[in-house]
């Protein structure tokens, strides 16, 4: 009996291959988007973690040679003997592998291979034979028998500095010296021990982890969003499949198949399908991840200097999570349908009209839920602090809006239906309204996809606009020159002083201000700053106050993280400074502050300025470059025109959002697919309703046209609702999530042209999706339409 029942159930799919495809494709796409995003996330995180664990030197200040020459080992020893707690690092490439030599006894905590800490044989590490740590591939590329450490970043090998020097054939040389955080009380000045070395501040972003977290959080949010879209599709597909199989179920039950057996069979059947779709989905996700990863890698690398392997590894964890999502999603979608099935009266027929009526009852519950979620979102919007609350608010808002969508659409359609004149128009509106329950899941998916698109593109574009303005402020000097050493710095300042309008030294040191790691800049107060810097908040004549050496300007990140405000005082070293202004600072993760250059020189005599901004008429720049090159001996590479820096900064910045854009497009495409599938599935069910219309004289091609118009209309209505939702999403991202993740709030700009284009895309997607069902409808053999009247239904 079970076999017979199963074959009867399965025969449904043979007769409706399209529906089978809908179900499998919907599930597979949902799984693909989810697992693809997860894969990118995990891969980036894994690479990033190992990079962070093994590559700690960027987190420390460093001494580097001012002329790019290697540092002699003797200089390292001399510095140690002068009280400088520094540790040597040497780096080089062998067979494409970055070989890093460290000195484990002097290295600050956190530098070096993680495995070494696990009680590794330090004697072996230090001895002349020396161990090499790296992944198996890396060690193979180096052709050494090393210690296999999967945690070391890809293409990086760690070994003792002595071994590295020998491998790289650079005995007695060091590339840089890492400066430990805690230095002794007594120390000879750097310029007296090693005048050729300059101190380089720790890489901007000692809290890189926090930043990349926010990036991953964005990706995860997108993953969830796309999964939600996918679940809507799956839910729709399964619901419709059940609806269509009601006659089969009814017949089987009438023939004596117990309800329990039937439900069990359907459940097993669905789970098998979910498994197949899940496997396809994970494989598809792998492809998506493979396509996205290079951009993610480039983004992380460009923005945060975190190195990410450009290739994917198949990790069991995302196979499992992908399949679990597919099975879970199907389970959730099927549970409701199975429950309905179990309560279905034995002889009930599939009746779309009845379905619509039932939907009307459900609508009340759904409406109530939507209202609760939207109110929750409003409350959170007013009170939310922090990343988690921000995302909770986003989730409440999006789900609430999605649930509310059918109700709003239904109301609009009812309104139109009441106002409609003419038989065809009235029938059109009524019929559209009746189809709504079948289409609403696809429309919800479209709503979410569009809202995400509006929201994220608004955020990205606002971000970019603000950032460009910020670059204009910040890169106000026409030429930037970097000196090789203190001597050359002097030559530059004296050599070009008569030629230029102003020379603005750029010097900084990383030090905590109010407990927050901060880059403190010693700045020559000049009209350039007065004219170009926009202060978010300030006291009277802030720059003049800074110039007196008693005041400080801080960036928005420091202002928010340390909870400071204008008029507060902070101590820097032992100097008490009044905060006289707060400036916007986009593109820099950590705190920043500006003090007067004389005060800076007094407090940090070892940090001389080596970079200079030069104010000069734009046309004079080439002449000045020539003077610097020929008279002072500054190589071209050390001079950068402002335009070049801007282009570079924008380039790095734009890559950040390539991934976001790609995901946007994918989500929209999936939503379009959902509409197509819903319409296709509905098409066969709708023949009984269309047949009377045809019988009273509406032609098949007219019916087909109406079909397209309906889809476009619904898409347009959805788009109209998606716009404010998207803008709310953008606001939440800019004002809540950004502040929590990056520490800055961005002004929100509107981009009507983008929205119009998006409208166009949505309508186009709906039109294309409805085209095929419409054509099929137009070509329905009249015999099929006639059958309706003779058929039992």
């Amino acid at each position, binding site marked *: 009996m079970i076999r017979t029942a199963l074959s009867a159930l399965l025969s449904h799919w043979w007769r409706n291959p399209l529906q089978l495809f809908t179900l499998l494709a919907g599930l597979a796409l949902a799984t693909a988007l989810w697992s693809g995003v997860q894969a990118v996330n995990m891969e980036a995180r894994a690479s990033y973690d190992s990079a962070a664990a093994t590559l700690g030197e960027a987190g420390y200040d460093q001494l580097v040679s001012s002329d790019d020459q290697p540092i002699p080992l003797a200089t390292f020893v001399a510095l140690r003997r002068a009280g400088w707690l520094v540790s040597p690092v040497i780096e080089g490439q062998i067979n494409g592998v970055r070989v890093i030599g460290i000195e484990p006894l002097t290295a600050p905590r956190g530098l070096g291979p993680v495995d070494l800490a696990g009680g590794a044989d330090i004697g072996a590490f230090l001895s002349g034979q020396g161990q090499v740590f790296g992944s198996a591939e890396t060690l193979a590329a180096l052709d050494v028998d090393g210690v296999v450490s999967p945690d070391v970043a890809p293409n990086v090998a760690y070994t003792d500095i002595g071994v590295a020097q020998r491998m790289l054939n650079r005995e007695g040389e060091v590339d840089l010296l890492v400066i430990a955080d805690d230095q002794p*009380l007594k120390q000879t000045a750097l310029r007296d021990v090693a005048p050729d070395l300059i101190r380089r501040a720790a890489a901007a972003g000692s809290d890189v982890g926090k930043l990349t977290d926010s990036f991953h959080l964005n990706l995860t949010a997108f993953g969830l969003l796309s999964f939600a879209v996918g679940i809507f599709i799956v839910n729709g597909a399964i619901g419709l499949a059940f609806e269509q199989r009601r006659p089969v179920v009814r017949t089987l039950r009438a023939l004596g198949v117990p309800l329990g057996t039937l439900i069990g069979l359907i459940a097993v059947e669905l789970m098998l399908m979910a498994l197949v779709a899940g496997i396809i989905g994970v494989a598809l996700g792998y492809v998506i991840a493979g396509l996205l990863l290079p951009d993610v890698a480039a983004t992380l690398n460009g923005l945060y200097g975190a190195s990410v392997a450009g290739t994917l590894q198949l990790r069991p964890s995302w196979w499992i999570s992908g399949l679990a999502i597919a099975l879970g999603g199907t389970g959730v979608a099927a549970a409701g349908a199975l429950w309905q099935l179990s309560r279905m009266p034995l002889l009930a027929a599939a009746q779309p009209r009845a379905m619509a009526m039932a939907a009307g009852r459900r609508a009340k519950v759904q409406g109530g839920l939507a209202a609760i979620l939207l109110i929750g979102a409003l409350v959170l919007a007013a009170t939310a602090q922090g990343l988690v609350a921000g995302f909770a608010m986003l989730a409440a808002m999006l789900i609430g809006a999605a649930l509310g969508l059918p109700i709003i659409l239904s109301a609009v359609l009812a309104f139109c239906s009441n106002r409609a004149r003419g038989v065809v128009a009235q029938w059109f509106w009524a019929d559209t309204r009746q189809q709504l329950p079948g289409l609403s899941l696809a429309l919800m998916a479209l709503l979410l996809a569009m809202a995400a698109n509006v929201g994220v593109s608004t955020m990205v574009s606002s971000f970019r606009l603000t950032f460009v303005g910020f670059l204009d402020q910040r890169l106000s000097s026409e030429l930037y020159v970097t000196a090789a050493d203190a001597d050359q710095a002097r030559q530059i300042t004296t050599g070009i002083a008569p030629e230029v309008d102003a020379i603005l030294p750029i010097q900084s040191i990383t030090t905590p201000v109010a407990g927050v790691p901060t880059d403190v800049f010693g700045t020559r107060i000049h009209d350039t700053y007065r004219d170009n810097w926009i202060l978010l908040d300030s006291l009277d004549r802030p720059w003049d106050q800074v110039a007196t050496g008693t005041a400080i300007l801080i960036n928005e990140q420091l202002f928010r993280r340390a909870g400071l405000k204008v008029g507060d005082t902070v101590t820097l070293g032992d100097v008490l400074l009044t905060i006289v202004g707060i400036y916007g600072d986009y593109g820099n993760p950590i705190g920043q502050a500006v003090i007067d250059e004389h005060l800076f020189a007094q407090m940090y005599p070892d940090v001389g300025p080596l970079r200079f901004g030069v104010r000069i008429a734009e046309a004079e720049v080439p002449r000045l470059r020539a003077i610097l090159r020929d008279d002072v001996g500054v190589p071209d590479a050390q001079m950068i025109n402002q335009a070049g820096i801007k282009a570079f900064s924008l380039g790095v910045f734009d890559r950040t959002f390539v991934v976001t854009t790609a995901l946007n497009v994918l989500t929209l495409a999936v939503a379009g697919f959902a509409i197509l599938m819903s319409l296709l599935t509905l098409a066969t069910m709708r023949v009984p309703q269309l047949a009377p219309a045809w019988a009273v004289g509406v032609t098949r091609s007219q019916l087909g046209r109406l079909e397209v118009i309906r889809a476009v209309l619904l898409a347009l209505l959805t788009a109209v609702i998606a716009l404010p939702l998207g803008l709310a999403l953008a606001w939440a991202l800019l004002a809540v999530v950004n502040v929590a993740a990056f520490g800055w709030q961005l002004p929100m700009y509107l981009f009507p042209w983008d929205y119009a284009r998006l409208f166009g895309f949505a309508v186009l997607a709906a039109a294309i999706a409805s085209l095929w069902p419409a054509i099929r409808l137009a070509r329905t053999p009249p015999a099929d339409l006639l059958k309706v009247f003779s058929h039992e239904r």
Partner: protein
Amino acid sequence: MNAKIILCALMPFAANAQGFAGLGGDADGFSVPTPAPSFDFPADHGPHDDYRIEWWYLTANLQAEDGTDYGLQWTLFRSALAPESGAGWTAPQLWMGHAAVTTPTDHYVSERIGRGGIGQAGVTADPFSAWIDDWQFSGDWQTMEMTASGTDFAYDMDLIAQGPLIFHGEDGYSVKSAGGQASYYYSQPYFDIAGTLTLPDGDVAVTGSAWLDREWSSQPLAADQTGWDWFSLSFDDGAKMMGFLLRQSDGTAYSSATWIAADGTTMAYPDGAFQAEPLETSETSGATVPTTWRVQLPDRGVDATVTAVNTDAWMQTSVPYWEGPVRIEGSHTGRGYLEMTGYE
């Protein structure tokens, strides 16, 4: 850098949880002290690379003009991965420096670690200089100079020797267990010391007396010895005494002592003659350790109470231990230093 690594590296003897207990390892290829040594100075002030472990260990009892007691420590350990000298990065000689200043209320500690082959740390015998990074102890063993600094303290001291070198055990062959483990061990306990301590509250001019220990070996402890309690005591009557207990895992201890009369003549005492008994323990930042002791050397009529100036003289270094100045009361009065290892 994980402290455990340094511990494993620098203290081959401390690789197990017992810390100092591993000092009783095999000598594997290293030289072992033999009885009746003949020292060759100044060469023997320098390093003995064919022995596994060696130290230059100075402690000082200091006083400021206002009468406040201070303690000071300057230590350089040499630890060899192999019994070779060598040069460059491959040299198997590792060095570790400990410096500390103890006040009645605070204890400042700093540690430095480095490799011998590249010049970051080392000892030369003639002219004598011992250094690691910017820390230095140098001179001709009559007048000497000593500096060290940490993140929150520094000192700069001048020393003048006022007496001869003292040899412990049998002419410098100091037996450490019933099984015969031994080290070479001599001291210069007669330094007058004066200089400046730089502390968070400012500079303090101090004077006092210092005691320098020199010791080297390859397996100074027996396998069942878990740590030691070591006393260097300078009595107000001019006599001095060095005594230690090597605690054994069965609860007993192996003791040894050297009596240094005011005229500089010495007398070594075998196991059992010197006794030390904890009277009070204190919670420190590390372990709970005895900080008041009753010490006895009945043969010399010594029955005194030794009390820590600052009970929390815990050395939070790679291998943690307790080291600090003490006051002596009872049959004899005076000042001294106490070192306790192997407390967990």
